[in-house]
Each structure stands twice: as structure tokens, then as C-alpha cells.
């Protein structure tokens, strides 16, 4: 087993005292970055990148990737406690995490979120360790048609799962698509729906939408409802952790499924955010009690967190082996590699063995360190719930505004965030779901681009989506997912008919 030998060598590189210290610093910074909405892993790493130029490449990448792990862990904290996702990939975590917190089960939700993040990452790293060349080859089979099929599958596994009336879901999703269409049309190079406003050139960033809709929207709603967060104090002690852990093994199938979804979306590269939505949708589909989702079902926390972390981890694989980043954060790390004189791509594994295996070993260690750090710092985060709303709310608004500004260093985005905040408030009052809007905004322009690229390739024939077994089976699966609610409602109805 070559891999085992290489990995052991990697551990000996990663296990030095300074490297472990960098890991700890990285994870802690990452959690902070993850907690602050808007200040994503990509921004965090971009800001800290210059500090690492004087370090040796292995230590530098270990610290930076640990920031990334930390951000993946940290995003869940505010989702669960305040219903405000710290990172876009924790939007799906709010669906059940926040209800759990409202029921006084914040500690269980946090433990579940962190543990599942850890499990997702661990399986993904194991895959990278042993199957990297195979996975890289698999990623190569993805052209525009395959990308579109995956994006279609994400939509299809998510639609129809909302409890809101279908018309409201569609309205929300269409608004998301409309917003996603603003800006430059990638295929013709023309500007669309910018109405001559230079501010609209870059389109609507879904990060801004998430911060506004969820962050500001939630604050507005809470102000109306009596100036207090409904979350109960989330005291996390060892007993709760162990109790939650005892429950988790029964969800082994959810873990496996979510990890598979996550790894796949990370490699192809769909990214952590679509992965978390898709995994949540599938978990609900496959559940025996789908109606309990959205009301504090622990599986609803496990599924998106596992998938997000697995996707975040495996997104590093195409970066290392092919030189294409699977996520914005990976893109910034890629820039870092170049500066340290390492050319990412197929030769990296051959020419810089020490570096690659040191990084992979640090993924194992970093996640263990990360789990320990988050589990021990949670009482600290949970203590925020005891701060009076009148103190914490302005702080959250300021953090949201700073976060929105950092995305593109633009004041216009801060104004947009406030507009989205009002939209979010109205959505909640009128009981429109926000998740379809966010999903459409995240995936809308990607899906449009890959659809139109496919149409260019096939010169307008839809048959391209069934042109080979890979794309055919993904597209087929997407359609099954789409009609599933019809099938299952039919199944549910038929016994009744027999009874009646």
C-alpha cells in the first residue's frame, strides 16, 4: 500500500509542533470567520495569504486549509442559534437547527452539526487518500452536459420538499432565477437587465442575498415579536455530547448518503452550498417521517452539515490534481500554491510529494483538532443567547454590513443587503419560503451557462443529456426526483382509498 506509506510520511511532516500550532491558529481563525456572515473562507484566506509568504509552503497551506475547516465548522453555529447562516452552505442547517434551538435543544443540534461535519470530512479525506487518481479521472468525464445534469438533479431533489404551497415555492424560485440573470450573459457577452446602472454589472451575489434575507430579515422579525431571541440557553456539557453521540449511529445511512452527495458535488465541482441543499432534500425524501423535517428533526441537521463538509473537503481534490478550484476558497488557495512556486495540476502529486501528503495528513489532523476546538468553545458561543437582544442585534447588523461590504468592497452591496432584509421580512410575514430563492440564485447562472454550453456543443439537440451512460443516468435520476412527490402522494393516497 503506497498510499499508507505516503500518508505516514505525510503525518511525520504535519505532526511537528509548529505545524500543530498553525493548525490550532487556523482552526480558531476559521471558526471566527465562519461565524461572521459574509466574511467567508475565501475572503478570510485571501486576507491572510500574504502573511504566509515567508512561511514554508507546507506549514502555510496547513494553516490556510485549517482556516477553511474552521469556517466550515463555524458556519453552523449562528444558523442554529440565531437562524442566521454564517456561511451560505449552512442555510440548509437553519431549517431544522433553529427549530431545535427554539425547543431548547441547541446543544444537541450543535453537537450533531459538528460531529456530522467531522464524519463527512473524514470520509472525504479517506477517499482523497486512496482514490485521488481515480476521482480525478472521474472528474474529467464532466463536461457542460454533465454539469447541467448535476445542477438539474440538485433542483429536482430540492423542489417539492417545501411545506409551503407549490405556487409560493415557484414564485420564490422564479424571483431567484430573475435575480441570477442580472449582469453579464456568459454566452453572448452582453449585459442583461442592468438598465444602465453600473452597480448592476456584477449581478446579485447570493452571499449578499443570504446575509440580507436571513440576517437582517430575522432581526426585523425579532424586533416585531418582542425584542428577544427565542432560543433557549445552549449549555453544552459532556453529558449532552455523549447522549447525542449515542443517538447518531442509527443515522448511519444518512451519513453515508450525505457524504456521497457531498464528495460528488465537491469533485464535479458543484460546491458545498448546492451539496447541502441536495443532501437535505434527499434526506427528507428518504425519511420515514418527512413531515417532521423543518420542525427540529436531528437528521435535518446531520444531512446538510455532512454533505457541506464532505464537499468542502473534496473540492480540494480537483484543485490539487487538475488545477481547477472546486470552490471559491480553493481558488484562493490555488493562487497561494502558485506564489509558493507549486504549480497545481497532474504533476503536483509526482513532483511535490511531501507537500501533497503533508496537506492530506493535515486534513485528518485538522479535522480532529477542529472537532475538539468547536466542542469546547460552544458554551462560549451559546452564551451569546443570554446577551440581551438590544445589545446583540446592533452588533449582528454591523457584522452583516461589514460582511456584505467585504464580498466586493462595495457600498452598493450594503444597500442591497438592507433591501434583501426587507424582502426577507416580507417573505416571512407572507409565508413565502426563502430557500428556493437562495438555491435559484446560487445555481441559476451556473445552470444557465452549462445548459447553453451544452446546446452549443450539440447544436441545439436535447439528446446530449442522454448521449452517454453518465449524463443519462444523472438526468434520469433528476426526473425521478422531480416526479417523486407525485408518486409518493399517490402511494399515500391509495391505502386511504382502500380503507374508505
Amino acid at each position, binding site marked *: 500500500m503506497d498510499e499508507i506509506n505516503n500518508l505516514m510520511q505525510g503525518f511525520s511532516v504535519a505532526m511537528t509542533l509548529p505545524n500543530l500550532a498553525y493548525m490550532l491558529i487556523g482552526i480558531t481563525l476559521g471558526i471566527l470567520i465562519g461565524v461572521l456572515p459574509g466574511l467567508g473562507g475565501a475572503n478570510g484566506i485571501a486576507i491572510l495569504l500574504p502573511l504566509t509568504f515567508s512561511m514554508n509552503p507546507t506549514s502555510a497551506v496547513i494553516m490556510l486549509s485549517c482556516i477553511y475547516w474552521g469556517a466550515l465548522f463555524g458556519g453552523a453555529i449562528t444558523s442554529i442559534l440565531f437562524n442566521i447562516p454564517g456561511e451560505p452552505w449552512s442555510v440548509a442547517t437553519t431549517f431544522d437547527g433553529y427549530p431545535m434551538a427554539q425547543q431548547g435543544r441547541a446543544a444537541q443540534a450543535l453537537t450533531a452539526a459538528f460531529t456530522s461535519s467531522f464524519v463527512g470530512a473524514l470520509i472525504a479525506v479517506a477517499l482523497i487518500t486512496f482514490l485521488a487518481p481515480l476521482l480525478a479521472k472521474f472528474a474529467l468525464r464532466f463536461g457542460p452536459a454533465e454539469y447541467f445534469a448535476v445542477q438539474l438533479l440538485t433542483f429536482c431533489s430540492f423542489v417539492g420538499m417545501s411545506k409551503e404551497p407549490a405556487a409560493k415555492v415557484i414564485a420564490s424560485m422564479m424571483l431567484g432565477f430573475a435575480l441570477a440573470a442580472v449582469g453579464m450573459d456568459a454566452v453572448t*457577452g452582453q449585459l442583461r437587465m442592468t438598465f444602465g446602472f453600473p452597480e448592476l454589472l456584477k449581478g446579485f451575489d447570493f452571499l449578499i442575498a443570504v446575509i440580507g434575507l436571513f440576517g437582517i430579515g430575522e432581526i426585523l422579525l425579532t424586533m416585531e415579536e418582542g425584542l428577544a431571541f427565542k432560543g433557549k440557553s445552549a449549555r453544552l456539557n459532556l453529558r449532552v455530547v455523549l447522549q447525542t453521540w449515542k443517538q447518531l449511529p442509527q443515522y448511519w445511512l444518512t451519513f453515508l448518503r450525505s457524504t456521497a452527495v457531498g464528495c460528488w458535488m465537491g469533485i464535479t465541482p458543484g460546491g458545498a452550498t448546492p451539496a447541502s441543499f441536495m443532501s437535505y432534500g434527499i434526506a427528507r425524501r428518504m425519511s420515514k417521517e418527512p413531515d417532521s423535517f423543518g420542525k427540529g428533526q436531528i437528521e435535518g441537521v446531520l444531512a446538510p452539515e455532512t454533505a457541506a463538509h464532505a464537499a468542502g473537503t473534496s473540492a480540494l481534490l480537483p484543485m490539487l490534481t487538475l488545477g481547477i478550484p472546486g470552490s471559491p476558497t480553493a*481558488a484562493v488557495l490555488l493562487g497561494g500554491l502558485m506564489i509558493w512556486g507549486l504549480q497545481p495540476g*497532474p504533476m503536483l502529486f509526482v513532483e511535490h510529494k511531501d507537500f501533497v501528503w503533508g496537506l492530506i495528513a493535515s486534513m485528518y489532523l485538522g479535522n480532529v483538532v477542529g472537532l475538539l476546538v468547536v466542542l469546547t468553545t460552544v458554551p462560549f458561543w451559546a452564551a451569546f443567547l443570554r446577551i440581551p437582544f438590544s445589545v446583540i442585534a446592533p452588533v449582528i447588523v454591523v457584522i452583516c454590513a461589514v460582511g456584505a461590504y467585504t464580498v466586493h468592497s462595495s457600498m452598493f452591496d450594503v444597500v442591497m443587503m438592507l433591501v434583501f432584509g426587507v424582502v426577507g421580512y416580507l417573505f416571512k410575514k407572507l409565508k413565502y419560503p426563502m430557500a428556493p430563492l437562495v438555491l435559484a440564485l446560487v445555481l441559476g447562472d451556473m445552470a444557465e451557462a452549462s445548459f447553453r454550453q451544452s446546446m452549443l456543443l450539440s447544436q441545439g439537440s436535447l439528446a446530449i443529456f442522454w448521449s452517454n451512460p453518465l449524463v443519462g443516468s444523472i438526468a434520469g435520476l433528476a426526473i425521478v426526483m422531480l416526479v417523486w412527490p407525485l408518486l409518493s402522494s399517490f402511494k399515500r393516497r391509495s391505502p386511504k382509498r382502500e380503507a374508505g
Partner: protein
Amino acid sequence: MNLRSRVKALSSILIGFCALATWPAHAWEPTKPIEFVVPAGTGGGADQMARFLQGVVAKNKLSPQPIIVVNKSGGAGAEGFLDVKGDKGNGHKIVITLSNLFTTPLATGVPFNWRDLTPVSMLALDQFILWVNHDTAFKTTKDYLTAIKAQPDKAFKMGGTGSKQEDQIITVLMEKALGKKMIYIPLKGGGDVAVQLVGKHIDSTVNNPIEAESHWRSGALRPLCVMDKERLPYKGKLTTTQSWNDVPTCASAGLPVEYLMLRGIFMPPGVTPDQVKYYLDLFKKVRALPEWKDFMEKGAFKQTFMSGDEYFNWLGQNEQAHRVLMREAGFLAN
């Protein structure tokens, strides 16, 4: 303290003030962090160069203030250019450009022209190489050209970055030289384009050397020809048998297409000559570093350096060339 010593102290303070007051006139230096705008996404060629510059400047302590890279890629870079254009007189802002300096305003009609900015210097020119998958039968440019000519229109798929930008302009140039139409697929970034070629989803690309170099070394891609008047000067072996220098020019191989892309630095309008000089000197210092030489060689850049009038004239000519090319291709906004 007696009177004399007081006068002495006072005069020395005065002299000190005078020195302070006149000193900035001799050399302007940044007093707060320098914003380095990249009018393109993270991970692309311009972004890599900007982040590399940020790194070497910090590492070699060439600037008293750090450089902060900011990506403003919206509207094919229009977001970044408009931002710099609107920041009149700000000496703490620079922007790196690629061909979208010319193509974006021409294709979209966004109110912007390079003359709205203050040119500082050209850093280098980026090359374009015609790449095919290693498994194809096209061993030389001639094989490739014969195959295209033997097929009907729109049988060959060319992948490239973005729409109505350098890659598509080159594709149109090739179409004209060949008398055959190709299908142009606009993809997201240069790295993405190369990987799509490795995965055989497209037939050829015109990637910059640095974007496809590692796939070449791993034996997945093959360079056919370089779109310049002369061969690349870099003779270090990259594969067992070949170096950049072994790639023939396209013109010599029967494909008369030439295209080079600007990697240059601009500042906002209305900055002082001292400020321009500061950055000019900064980049001259960077160009003398061994790290810069490695970077140039790794990316197989054309190491042309220009500033002042020479640079200004080059920009005017290059803009005109783009206008002509894009008008012929039907890419102009109006």
C-alpha cells in the same frame, strides 16, 4: 535654557519641518495600504500575477505599505475598470489589465476607455498556444488544419474563456485563415478550459502557456503552435523531449494568426506624476528579482517592458487593432 539655545532648538525644528515639507516632492510614498484591483475572477492569469506581485513585494519589503488584491470581475471586468475610473486622484489604487481593457467596452458599450485611466507600465505580454488532446491524431498544426478543412462547417469545437474576448477573437482569426467555421464554447476560466480539453469535451483550445503547462508535462495535452512572430525563448526541457522553444510559430506552420495579451498596470485618472513614478520604480525593482524571472519562465511570458509614451502609443495601436478585429467579427456593441 538660555535664549541662544532656544533659538537654536527652534531653528532646528524649523529646518526639520522644511525638510519634511519638501521631502514628499522628491519621492511620493504610499501612506496607507495599496488597493490592487483585478478586473477578473480568482485563479485566472491576471489574478495569479497580481497575487504573485503582492507576495514578492511583501516578501522583499519593497513597499512601506501592503498591497491588497481585490477582485472586481463583474461584467467581464467592467466593474473593476469603472471603479478605478471613478476613483479620481487616488494614488493608493492600481489595476492590472488583460485584453478586456479593450474588448469589454467595445463589446458591451460600458462607458469606459483605457484613456480614462493613467497608464503606468507594461509588465509583460502573455502568449497564446494552440492545444489539442494528446490522444488525438493531430501531431502537428498541419494535421489539425487538414482535418478541419476536410470537415463541414461547425464540426470542430473550440473552447475558450468568456465571450467576445481574446479567446473568441483568436477563434475568429483562425476561422478566417481556414475559411471554416468552428463552434466556440465560452467557458468559465482558463484552468477550466484546459481541463475540458483533457476530458475531450472540446477539440482544441488557445490556452495561455501557464494554464496548460502541467497537463502538457503529464502527457495529457499537446501544444501545436504559438501565436507570435517568433518562438518562445525558454529552452528548459518540460517533457522528456520538448521545451517551450520546440513549439513552432503558427505562421510557420501554416496558420497565419498572431495575438499577444497585455499584462499591464494602470492607475486612476488625475494622479500626480510622482505617484506614477513610485509604482514605475516599484515594478522595475520587482522585475530585477529572481522570483520574477522564475515566474516569467514558468508562464512562458514575453518579457516586453514599456512605459511612458512608448506604452501609450502601443495601447492606442492595440486598441485600434481590437476595434478592427471585433468589427469584422461582428462583436461591437453598436
